[in-house]
């Protein structure tokens, strides 16, 4: 198994004083008996696991969605969600991985394949027959909000195509786009690029691979380690040259900063260098704002916008910078949700046996959106899978806040999801 060390997440179980606050706030335990709650599955069960067990004694930990609400509310600092992720990895190491989880863990590979013939792939995937098949054969819930492959080409191909139009500048920033932007939502990448350029930065998009989070949350630690090592190899040289690395997928940036090193026990110098260079795009923009470097030439965007700071964003513990910056846009009435989780939690809500749990967890958020009134046209959220779940649960389109910001700068069409010609 993985090396235990004092830095590792395991010893954090000692912080637990059994107060049950985590269980009181856990959105999953609130809706199902299948998950006995974070305290039980985390610091409590961990004392019965330890390394070198003959076999993993518990299964219910697989029902932890990994949303980290427990970590957020814990008064003593137990890394509960990480303990659970570790326990799941132990199960995977012993019992093997279902094909379904292998697939969900490899969205980069799927993205590459799908993007070869996106129209065909979408046709093949998004029809009733194949969804029923997918549910029966591999256990992916038929109703779950699977994304569509981009039919206008990948983000990478757009960067290539528009290379001549891209800003050149002394001020440079590295962009980590993540798999979803690359293959499903290139427009999020485009919006990010035009905003960064609006601030006067040249955007470097180096070769990169999946951050490994889907693998981590499905317990495939070995494969996740290879991904993280790949990113260290590709990105650390930039960090060492003093570049900041900005990402628009908040779960990717969280993984690069903290999740991968913690879960994989990679506390080496390179991981540390990468961690300190990586920023979530709004975390980085807020810093520019605080330094007085953020242009505020916003055009009014008169609308009510329910915004959900996703679990992964809250796990950064940097506050709600997107909400802070969107609040600067004239006319925009940002309503920040206090819902705990949308329920999808990465790949959790895609799984047949967890789909309904995910929807029940998300009910709090869907209700919040409904409460904001009938004039609401769209919602916003920083995380791709959460946006898809939000759309699924509310029937309203959902946008990344960077798209909203880009639109407020007049650089982006929020309806058609593409940059406006400058």
């Amino acid at each position, binding site marked *: 198994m993985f090396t235990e060390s*004092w830095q590792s997440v395991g010893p954090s179980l000692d912080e637990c*004083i*059994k107060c049950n606050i985590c269980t009181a706030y856990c959105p999953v335990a609130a809706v199902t008996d299948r998950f*006995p709650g974070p305290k039980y599955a985390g610091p409590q069960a961990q*004392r*019965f696991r330890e390394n070198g067990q003959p076999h993993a*004694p*518990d299964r219910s930990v697989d029902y932890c969605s990994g949303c980290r609400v427990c970590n957020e509310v814990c008064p003593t600092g137990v890394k509960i969600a990480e303990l659970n992720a570790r326990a799941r990895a132990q199960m995977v190491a012993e019992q093997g991985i279902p094909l379904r989880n292998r697939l969900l863990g490899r969205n980069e590979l799927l993205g590459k394949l799908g993007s070869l013939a996106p129209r065909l792939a979408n046709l093949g995937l998004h029809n009733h027959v194949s969804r029923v098949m997918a549910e029966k054969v591999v256990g992916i819930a038929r109703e779950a909000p699977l994304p569509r492959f981009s039919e206008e080409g990948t983000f990478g191909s757009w960067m290539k195509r528009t290379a001549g139009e891209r800003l050149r500048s002394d001020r440079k920033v590295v962009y980590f786009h993540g798999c979803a932007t690359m293959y499903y939502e290139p427009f999020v990448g485009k919006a990010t690029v035009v905003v960064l350029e609006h601030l006067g930065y040249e955007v470097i998009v180096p070769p990169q691979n999946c951050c490994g989070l889907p693998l981590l949350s499905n317990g495939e630690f070995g494969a996740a380690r290879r991904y993280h090592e790949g990113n260290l190899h590709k990105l650390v040289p930039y960090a060492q040259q003093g570049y900041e690395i900005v990402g628009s997928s908040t779960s990717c940036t969280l993984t690069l900063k903290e999740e991968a090193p913690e879960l994989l026990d990679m506390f080496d110098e390179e991981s540390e260098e990468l961690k300190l260079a990586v920023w979530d795009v709004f975390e980085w923009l807020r810093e520019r704002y605080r330094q007085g470097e953020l242009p505020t030439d916003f055009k009014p965007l008169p609308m009510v916008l329910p915004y959900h700071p996703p679990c992964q964003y809250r796990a950064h513990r940097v506050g709600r910078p997107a909400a802070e910056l969107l609040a600067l846009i004239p006319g925009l009435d940002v309503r920040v949700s206090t819902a705990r989780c949308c329920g999808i939690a990465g790949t959790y809500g895609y799984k047949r046996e967890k789909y309904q749990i995910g929807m029940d967890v998300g009910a709090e958020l869907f209700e919040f959106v409904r409460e904001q009134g009938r004039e609401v046209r769209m919602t916003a959220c920083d995380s791709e899978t959460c946006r898809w779940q939000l759309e699924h649960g509310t029937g309203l389109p959902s946008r990344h806040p960077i798209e909203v910001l880009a639109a407020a700068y007049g650089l982006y069409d929020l309806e058609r999801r593409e940059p406006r010609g400058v």
Partner: protein
Amino acid sequence: MTRRLQTEILVIGGGATGVGIAWDAALRGFDVILVEKRDLTHGTTGRYHGLLHSGGRYVVKDPQSARECIAENRILRRTHPHCIEDTGGFFVVTPEDEGEYPDRFVQACAETGVPCEEIALREAFRREPLLNRRISRVFEVPDGAADSFLATHVTAQAARQAGARILTYHEVTGLLLRGPEGAREVVGARVEDLAGGETLEIHATMTINATGAWAGQIARMAGLTVEVIPGKGVMVAMNHRLVNTVINRCKMPADGDILVPIHTVSVIGTTDVRVPDPEHYGIEPWEVALMLAEGDKLVPGLSRARAVRAWAGVRPLYQEGYTGASREATRQFTLLDHARRDGVQGLLTIIGGKWTTFRLMAEKTVDKACEYLGTRQPCQTATTQVPGAEQGHYWLGHRLHEVEEHELHGDLVCECELVTRAMLENAVYRNPTLTLDDLRRDLRLGMGPCQGGFCTYRAVGILHEMRERAGEAGGEVDRSDWEVAYMQSPAHNRSLPPPSSLPLALSSPNLLLRDFLQERWKGVRPILWGRQLKQEMLDSLIYLSLMNVDHLPDAGLTSPMTAFYEQDAGDVGETEAGV
């Protein structure tokens, strides 16, 4: 009115040795009564670190003990498998353990027959990642971890099944003596039933003093002098398993040189300090500090991990004519035949030894009793399995596994140690219970990180509810044959209908509550800092702010255990460190 009982063999002392004797004697067909002044294993048996010796610790210093240990280790793995976790053990050479000891150790293992294999460091660190990386050599031996509570309970059940009577909370107040000075004979004992308030006279052909560190006090009742060397050993339990293998320092046995993974914790032990009284001793801050400092040499960082509890046991060491330091006294056991030694008939005293050799001590003692009782039945304990043996070896995840398989999450009373309501109820129905501390020994109730913070209240509520409902359904449970073999198994304990009456003093919930809170406090107080202090403050908030337990009615009530729990370590006076 004094009740009179008659038996062939009266065993005094409900530790491993006494219970082992009762089992052995009953299997050989003797009529046996065992009396214990408190709960089984209240004494040293219940206050040790839980090591099943391979004998490795004694190969150099005490080869005879080592030979006995490895032989008994093999036997107990067959007779009491479910009480033993097959952790294996390492003897490790730290930078401070240089010199020729490691080579002597290997040699002595070979001579005494203790299996010992040097393993590659890489392999050792793979298995135990937290081990000190400066360790230079590692030897593997067949050490194990033993649950001495469960082992003693199931041995007692086996003894009962063979016809023995076992009376807990029965304190010997005097020996029944006959004959003039010089031709004195012990013919039994006067016994106080502490729970029932009754006085018994138990007449016996042979009385066996198996009271360990208290043996001198019993012998004195017959006018005899038995100089026990009470060697106090302090142990500190760390909140979780830092290691899964028993880790010993490869050097002459000394303070703080062993780390035992037992159930959910790891125990660092021990000191060895001669104390004046086996009942009254404290845990000194220097002893705790020493354990942590020595623990750091095995697992660097141990001293910063969360300690969950400290306790001390008193080794009943005995060496005829010896007056030195307890650490240097022999670990072998001694059988005193008072007829030959002192001219007093009818009394044997068995003393010394260690948990691992309890069965052998019992065998030798009953062999001797046979000589006097005039029969030559062979000993059967080495080949007889105790109840529950079919469960196989204990493994750490077993409770969690059963809770999961049977979806018992909602029934947990002690969430830290995974005790269900049905386990609690059955433990009360199926074996005598006077205090929550008894249930702790039966089930591990309150032994986890919160040290009873949540389960004390729940257990009190459930016990009280049982009393309220007793007779409701009228299901009578036959308690003449205590069922304890599966007591620790969540899956095997399902709710029974409440019996028509409940045993012993479940009468005052307030007393149960106060007693157990104080009992838990006694053991956490020496290690309260950092996270455990925070925990204790939450527990205080629960029992003071929320419950107002310190202002409940019945403040004056006491149980036979109250004074023991309240005894102030600070008032004990100086102990003789290293004398």
